[in-house]
């Protein structure tokens, strides 16, 4: 989990923005993948997720407007749960939303840890706010997931073998 | 002096054409005939003559039998006659291996060292035998060598001024010091003095031409210079006989003009290094021979498909497989034209003389650059490794326009389909024009595509750019008139041209057409060149008649056609072509 300590608002904002941009990039990538493998339902949900995260990014960016943020190199943190998820070409909307829920749960957990660490109260307050947002989004996703059926066993069965390309 | 002319075959003499003198110098392991031959050639050039020298040798790297075959003339010469006026042997060890290459008759002079025995295979051909004490004279001079004595004797016999030899020796031995020059000159003088005992043969005194700037150059060196004149600044090299000298000449010289040569691990690497160099914006070339070309073929297709200009000079040798590496053959025509898989239009050109290796390589580079494609230059061992005295080749400048994008362009499409077929090409470093070059079929932007529409568009584009280009008069050498034509290419042009001269001297009208541009085919131009022709002889040094078949496939040939397709390793001689044409005439 976190390898750098969050001491200031600037640290927290930088960290949050990096996490958000990671998830936006991932969701966009997955949306593209789903387009390529002709899975429009999953693609649409990933696009919607990317847009949601993008909106949150804009909010956090506006909060950071007057703050000089430290640069975080990719290897300076390792938010494994979010950046290491992978998609499946036959994944259903249920899987798609489950993936996003896991990401949000992980984010909320991280912000909670930060909130509980030895930091000033205004940073704590901000971390608390971010954790709440993540939890709220998570609840929204869970609600949305209920609109879709749970995938049946064998959902990833492909009756054709893989193709030969080059 | 022994006379074994009585054993000889009848002399083959033709009337008045190129007056010239052919000299063969033989010797084995360390005798220095190659060096002496080169010095004789250069001295002849100093004295205002033209000429050429070919090296022939056994399979040994050191110590084997070797022959320097020279032909000197007041006019430029492009081929050996086969028949030799003088054969000088420092020794006769294994000399009969050259019998096929060196033809003597009763008018030839055979010179050997005192006490030697002329092999029967040589003495049988005829000629007047003269013994000179080459070794003995050399022994009498401190640092003296028989090859220098021989050089002096030959100079005297052919009327070459000793001053010209001295100038050449002084230059070539400058690193070894004055002592070496003096010893060599002492040998030369001793040889010359001894040769004055040989009865004078007036025929042999060739009057030298007026002095003007003359070059001593091999076809391989000329190809190297042509590459640099054409703008080549990156060369990837893998050694192979007989193409290596192009690379060895380029290594130091390319550096002087700001270029670079890299020795690659194999030909697969060298061709792909070229593609990388060229992609980076640097005109790129390599030289090889048949086996190397075979290895490069896949990536030449990549250059065609990705439209990355590259030039490959194939100095052809006897094939197939390892074949006869040190001897010439025109048998890589098929692989050069048809070797690429898929429909891959590209350029194939062939120099028709040693000096033309310069122009043709330069032109090939210009065409590759302008048309963003691969050019294959088909030179061969006889052009590449023969040294000739030629007039300074003209400076020719081409304006290449292939790499058209050097600044940001908003709607840049690397493989844009347009009328000319030549799409804009950016080079790395150009902002906003990044693209991925691809050997996969692609859309105009370069994105891989297997769609029928993209394939046909790109196929048409790659064909169109070559078909529409105006190659001008460079496509062929066309000369003369009449109802008989000889159609040839590459190094066969020399003997064909000389055979036609012989026939013309007898009053025949014969056309010569030698094709420099082999791909894309130029059917309209050839049809025009052959207008009114009733008989065409197709001459090539190739057992499989590849040129003949190529002509049949791509052109309509009028009238009667005959094919004269002779494999290496022996060169086609003017006499052979002359006899073929005479026989046809009389049929």
């Amino acid at each position, binding site marked *: 989990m976190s390898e750098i300590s969050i001491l200031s608002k600037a640290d927290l904002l930088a960290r949050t923005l990096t996490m958000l*941009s990671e998830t936006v*990039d991932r969701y966009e*990538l997955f949306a*593209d*993948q789903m387009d*390529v*493998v002709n899975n429009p339902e999953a693609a649409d949900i990933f696009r919607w997720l990317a847009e949601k995260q993008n909106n949150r990014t804009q909010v956090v960016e506006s909060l950071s407007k007057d703050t000089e943020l430290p640069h975080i*190199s*990719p*290897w300076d943190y*390792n938010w494994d749960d979010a*950046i*290491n998820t992978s*998609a499946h070409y036959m994944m259903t909307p249920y899987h798609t939303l489950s993936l996003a829920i896991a990401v949000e749960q992980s984010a909320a957990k991280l912000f909670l840890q930060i909130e509980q660490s030895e930091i000033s109260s205004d940073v704590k307050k901000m971390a608390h706010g971010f954790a709440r947002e993540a939890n709220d989004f998570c609840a929204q996703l869970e609600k949305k997931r209920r609109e879709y059926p749970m995938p049946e066993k064998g959902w990833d069965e492909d009756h054709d073998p*893989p*193709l030969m*390309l*080059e | 002096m022994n006379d074994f002319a009585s054993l000889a075959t009848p002399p083959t003499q033709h009337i008045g054409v190129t007056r010239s003198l052919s000299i063969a110098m033989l010797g084995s392991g360390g005798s220095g005939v190659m060096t002496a031959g080169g010095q004789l050639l250069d001295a002849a050039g100093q004295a205002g003559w033209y000429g050429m020298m070919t090296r022939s040798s056994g399979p040994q790297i050191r110590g084997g039998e070797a022959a320097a075959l020279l032909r000197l003339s007041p006019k430029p010469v492009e081929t050996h006659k086969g028949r030799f006026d003088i054969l000088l042997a420092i020794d006769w060890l294994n000399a009969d291996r050259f019998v096929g290459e060196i033809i003597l008759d009763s008018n030839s002079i055979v010179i050997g060292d005192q006490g030697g025995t002329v092999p029967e295979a040589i003495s049988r051909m005829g000629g007047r035998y003269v013994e000179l004490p080459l070794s003995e004279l050399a022994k009498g001079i401190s640092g003296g060598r028989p090859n220098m004595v021989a050089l002096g004797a030959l100079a005297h016999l052919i009327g070459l001024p000793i001053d010209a030899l001295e100038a050449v020796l002084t230059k070539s031995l400058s690193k070894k010091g004055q002592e070496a020059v003096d010893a060599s000159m002492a040998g030369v003088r001793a040889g010359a003095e001894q040769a004055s005992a040989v009865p004078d043969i007036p025929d042999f005194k060739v009057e030298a031409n007026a002095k003007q700037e003359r*070059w*001593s*150059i091999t076809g391989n*060196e000329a190809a190297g*210079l042509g590459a*640099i004149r054409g703008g080549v*600044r*990156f060369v*990837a090299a893998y050694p192979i006989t007989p193409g290596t000298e192009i690379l060895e000449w380029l290594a130091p010289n390319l550096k*002087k*003009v*700001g270029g*670079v040569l890299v020795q*690659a*691990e194999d030909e*697969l*690497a*060298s061709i*792909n*290094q070229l*593609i*990388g*160099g060229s*992609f*980076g*914006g*640097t005109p790129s070339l390599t030289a090889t021979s048949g086996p190397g070309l075979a290895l490069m073929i*896949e*990536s030449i*297709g*990549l250059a065609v498909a990705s439209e990355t200009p590259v030039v490959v000079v194939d100095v052809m040798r006897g094939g197939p497989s390892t074949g006869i590496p040190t001897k010439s053959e025109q048998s890589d025509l098929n692989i050069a034209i048809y070797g690429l898989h898929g429909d891959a239009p590209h350029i194939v050109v062939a120099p028709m003389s040693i000096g033309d290796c310069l122009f043709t390589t330069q032109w090939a580079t210009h065409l590759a650059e302008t048309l963003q494609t691969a050019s294959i230059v088909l030179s061969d061992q006889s052009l590449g490794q023969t040294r000739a005295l030629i007039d300074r080749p003209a400076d020719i400048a081409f304006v290449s326009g292939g790499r058209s994008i050097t600044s940001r362009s908003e709607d840049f499409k690397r493989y844009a389909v347009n009328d000319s077929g030549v799409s804009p090409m950016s080079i*790395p*470093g150009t*902002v906003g*024009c*990044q693209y*991925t*070059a691809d*050997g*996969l079929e692609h859309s105009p932007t*370069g*994105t891989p595509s297997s769609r029928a529409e993209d394939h046909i568009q790109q196929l048409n584009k790659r064909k169109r750019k070559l078909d529409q280009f105006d190659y001008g008069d460079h496509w062929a050498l066309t000369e003369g008139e009449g109802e008989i034509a000889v159609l040839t290419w590459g190094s066969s042009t020399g003997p064909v041209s000389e055979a036609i001269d012989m026939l013309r001297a007898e009053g025949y009208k014969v056309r010569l057409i030698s094709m420099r541009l082999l791909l894309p085919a130029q059917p309209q131009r050839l049809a025009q060149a052959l207008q009114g022709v009733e008989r065409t002889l197709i001459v090539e040094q190739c057992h499989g008649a590849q040129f003949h078949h190529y002509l049949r496939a791509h052109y309509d040939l009028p009238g009667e056609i005959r094919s004269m397709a002779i494999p290496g390793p022996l060169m086609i001689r003017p006499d052979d072509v002359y006899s073929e044409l005479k026989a046809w005439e009389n049929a």
Partner: protein
Amino acid sequence: MEMANTCPSLKAKDYKSGTKPVWCPGCGDYSVLLAITKAMAEMSLSPENVALVSGIGCSSRLPAYLNVYGFHAVHGRALPVATGLKVSRPDLTVLAAGGDGDGFSIGGNHFMHACRRNVDMTYIVMDNQVYGMTKGQASPTTDPDWDKSKLTPGGTKINPYYPLVIALASGANFIARASSTDPNGAAKVLVDAMQHPGFSFVHMLSPCVTFRPEQKDWKKMVRAAPVEPTTDPAVAAKRLMTDDNFFLGTLYKGNRAPYQPELKTSVEHISELEKGFIL
């Protein structure tokens, strides 16, 4: 390494082109692409001054997905193309990339000589121990008993090739392993590789979800190498010979000078060269 100009304002995704990859979802190569863009962003490289060359195979599709100059060459020849480019254009940042079949089998000779020649470039081999584009045949890094290919029933029965050991023996100046399961760690290795002079070899574990689904477990098997990079080839040799293929990080950093023939800027006129031919 010095760049003529840099672009500090670019983000990782600005290095991606608009072309969508054809890789299978879940393929490790997506993360390698991400790691490369992150590394480029960290180094503030100007996209027009970077070129990535590849051969043939799934991972060799990479250049089209980046907003840098790219060359998708033929099978096995990425390294010579990259060599020709870098030697004639030393001002560019040059990378080569491909898979284990492309780099170690058909391109094996070039790999050895590229290590030996030590031109300043970075070579990323995405190793999934299988030929994906031809439907799952064994590659030089496949275990001898892997029996899922129709081409080698019962397995290859041939010991796998050890690319890092061969790289060291051949003279590579930088040897590292990274994994697509840790793209941020991979980005760090890539920055390190690109900044190190000479030939840098990055062995990139990149699972194939289609033909080697068991490789999903690699995520649990990889771990940071518990050592600092060594400059001593003997130490590196022992390290690489005893390596279990899952240690990540920079393992060897040599100090050999890169091969870069001088490109003269003050040049002679061609007529000077011609003087050698005048009698």
